[in-house]
């Protein structure tokens, strides 16, 4: 069938600069560039271009420019080019539209409507270069009360995890991303004193040594979950849902279940690895409690057990149930959360913005007097340290970053993760491509990112006259809203700027 899809990008080559080195030909995984030996010319099949800019970055003579093709359909606010193209794709395949990363739709980003405070005259700011600043965060259940005896603390504390900064790497499963990506994450997390997360694809033995900085996931497919996996981990996280696909399961298509992926997920090679929508043993808060405690028993009560949900309409009530079910950490993944593959219609239409979910969950747990019983971690669209500071002020204990970490490794958010052809070698299991991420360099890039954010967070705190992140946590007086309605301000629990 002839496709009616127009090319989305134009790849322009400055012939006076092109030296026919074929780097673009070799770097492109979508078969855009090819070398014609007879004419000594490099040609481009622009209809294949996804705009990932791999060729542009690697062209040694800057001969290439990739830009959006001006899709000059007749202007129509309702029938925009993307909507037309989606219909074309479906009429040619008869399938659900699949995509990668988080939603690119223009839902309000509340971080951009919140501003932070700073000290002026009446309270001194602190210079973080000269004075110690504390970003240390402890995740885990905090007891209602502790007792001191003559020999120190009499009460036995619930297991805690110490983070040097309140930023962790989101769940990125082996199979979705490559081992090199996971190793980069694990090494950076270890170096910077934070955690990375296995996702539900199991844990490669090569990464066992980073166990103290590893969160392992237990999800509906239970892939690669075994005694050693639970033993090695620092935190065990039950995954109920994720922001990019709330309420639906997922599956790793058989094509991506390579020998190695099969070994780590503990399934036969080439079979679809199904993660069903619900966990078969969880139909209620009581059932969730059962799995939480099964995992606590399996790890001898030595590790915090977290539960991750997608932020949805009644998140606050669910979060209350999660805490009462024994979760030590609750993770909320918002509307803008990303993934390696999700039906587009779900990604772009289901769930609520993380800022609103966080504010309402934090409020609800405070009202019920159980906020101390679990740490709150949020995920889904944290882009910089400003977002982190605002999240902490809204009530989060820590944040997860996924997309930001992948961007540090080269990702340009071209949203082709689901194809398994990632030219940057990130979201693929093709061994020819995975070596494009070098764990030495990857770990350094990620550590650098976290270091930069740490410095900025300290600067933000210092400016407020605070010397410990703990003093900002849940302190919404340090936030003001701009361009928000009364209802939005009420849900966020912040005053309008100027008030």
């Amino acid at each position, binding site marked *: 069938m002839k496709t009616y899809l127009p090319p989305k990008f134009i790849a322009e080559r400055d012939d006076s600069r092109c030296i026919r080195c074929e780097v673009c030909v070799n770097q492109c995984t979508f078969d855009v560039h090819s070398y014609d030996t007879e004419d000594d010319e490099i040609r481009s099949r622009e209809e294949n271009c996804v705009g990932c800019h791999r060729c542009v970055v690697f062209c040694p003579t800057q001969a290439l420019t990739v830009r959006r093709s001006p899709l000059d359909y007749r202007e129509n606010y309702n029938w925009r080019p993307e909507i037309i193209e989606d219909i074309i*794709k*479906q009429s*040619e*395949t*008869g*399938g*659900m*539209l*699949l995509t990668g990363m988080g939603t690119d739709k223009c839902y309000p980003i509340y971080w951009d409507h919140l501003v932070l405070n700073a000290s002026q005259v009446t309270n001194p700011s602190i210079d973080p270069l000269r004075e110690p600043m504390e970003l240390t965060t402890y995740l885990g259940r905090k007891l209602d009360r502790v007792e001191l005896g003559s020999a120190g603390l009499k009460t036995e504390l619930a297991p805690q995890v110490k983070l040097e900064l309140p930023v962790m790497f989101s769940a990125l499963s082996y199979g979705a991303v490559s081992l090199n990506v996971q190793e980069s994450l694990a090494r950076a997390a270890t170096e910077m004193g934070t955690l990375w997360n296995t996702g539900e694809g199991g844990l490669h033995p090569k990464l066992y040594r980073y166990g103290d900085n590893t969160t392992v996931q237990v999800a509906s*497919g*239970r892939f690669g*979950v*075994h*005694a050693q996996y*639970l033993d090695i981990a620092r935190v065990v996280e039950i995954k109920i849902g994720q922001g990019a696909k709330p309420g639906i399961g997922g*599956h790793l*298509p*058989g094509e991506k279940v390579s020998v190695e992926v099969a070994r780590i997920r*503990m*399934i*036969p090679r*080439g*079979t*679809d690895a*199904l993660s*069903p929508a619900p966990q*078969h*043993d969880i139909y209620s808060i*009581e059932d969730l*409690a*059962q799995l939480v*405690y*099964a*995992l606590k*028993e*399996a*790890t*001898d*009560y030595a590790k915090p057990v977290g539960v991750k949900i997608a932020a949805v309409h009644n998140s606050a009530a669910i979060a209350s149930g999660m805490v*009462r*079910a*024994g979760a030590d950490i609750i993770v909320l993944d918002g509307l803008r959360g990303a993934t390696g593959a999700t*039906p587009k219609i779900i990604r772009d239409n289901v769930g609520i913005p993380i800022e609103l979910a966080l504010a309402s969950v934090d409020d609800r747990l405070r009202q019920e007097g159980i906020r101390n019983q679990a740490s709150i971690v949020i995920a889904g669209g944290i882009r910089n340290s400003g977002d982190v500071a605002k999240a902490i002020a809204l009530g989060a204990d820590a944040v997860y970053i996924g997309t930001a970490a992948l961007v540090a490794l080269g990702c340009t958010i071209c949203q082709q993760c*689901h*194809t398994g052809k990632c030219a940057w070698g990130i979201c693929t299991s093709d061994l020819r491509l995975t070596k494009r991420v070098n764990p030495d360099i990857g770990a350094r890039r990620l550590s650098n990112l976290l270091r930069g954010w740490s410095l900025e967070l300290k600067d933000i705190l210092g400016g407020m006259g605070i010397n410990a992140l703990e003093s900002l946590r849940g302190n919404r007086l340090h936030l003001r809203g701009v361009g928000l309605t009364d209802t939005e301000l009420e849900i966020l629990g912040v005053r309008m700027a100027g008030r």
Partner: protein
Amino acid sequence: MFKERPSEISVSSLTGESDMTKVDARALSHRELNARLRELVSSGVQRIELHNVYGQRYIGTDLDKPVKIDIFGTPGNDLGAFMDGPGITVHGNAQDGCGNTMDNGEIVIHGHAGDILGLSARGGKIFVKEDVGYRAGIHMKEYQDKKPTVIIGGTAQDFFGEYMAGGILVLLGLNLKEGEGHTANFIGTGMHGGVIYMRGEVQEFQLGKEVGVAELNENDYLTLEKLIGEFTCHFDCAAQEILKCRFTKLFPLHLRPYGRLYAY
């Protein structure tokens, strides 16, 4: 929910024979009982008898040694969850989630078992003398030499073998009367791996749309003979009588059920 009981309750363990330890579980919470089990197993005890078990959950979870545990009473949900090695015999009924995500070991139940028996199990064997609840064998999967195996003497409720991705499920229906069939519907819904053997006839409307029906071949009979041999050893009945009856083999029609679902 799950309030821990006061710790002053003492563990009354009556040590009997030298290689066998008896534990009275009457007043113990699941946490106390499992802590006691861990302690005994790490001290090298090979055989444990648990008496007066009243619904304590997670018994045998986190045990990775081939210890033998005999349970008298009714163990609670998630018996042997994540278990890797022990052999558990229940002299009574088991509840829901027995063998949840089990890796290795054996559970023998001299009675009925509840829902989601063997959920997501990757290895080990479960024998149930009587009936089981809904969704038995759900999402079991196999891996290399690991092949979870569940053999049920009685009958099962709906969604038997749902989402099954590997392993062997056997349903014997020994307690069905003459002319009576299994009543489960939606058998093998979403099945994409493994095999189900059912003793007696099963009607097409009872099956999930992903399931095919086949005659047993020689290998199937060899597998069944071996498994039923083990079953009859556990429950003291005659293997030959069981094997005389006709069996039906159910298998997944597609290993890649989600091949043509998406547009890229």
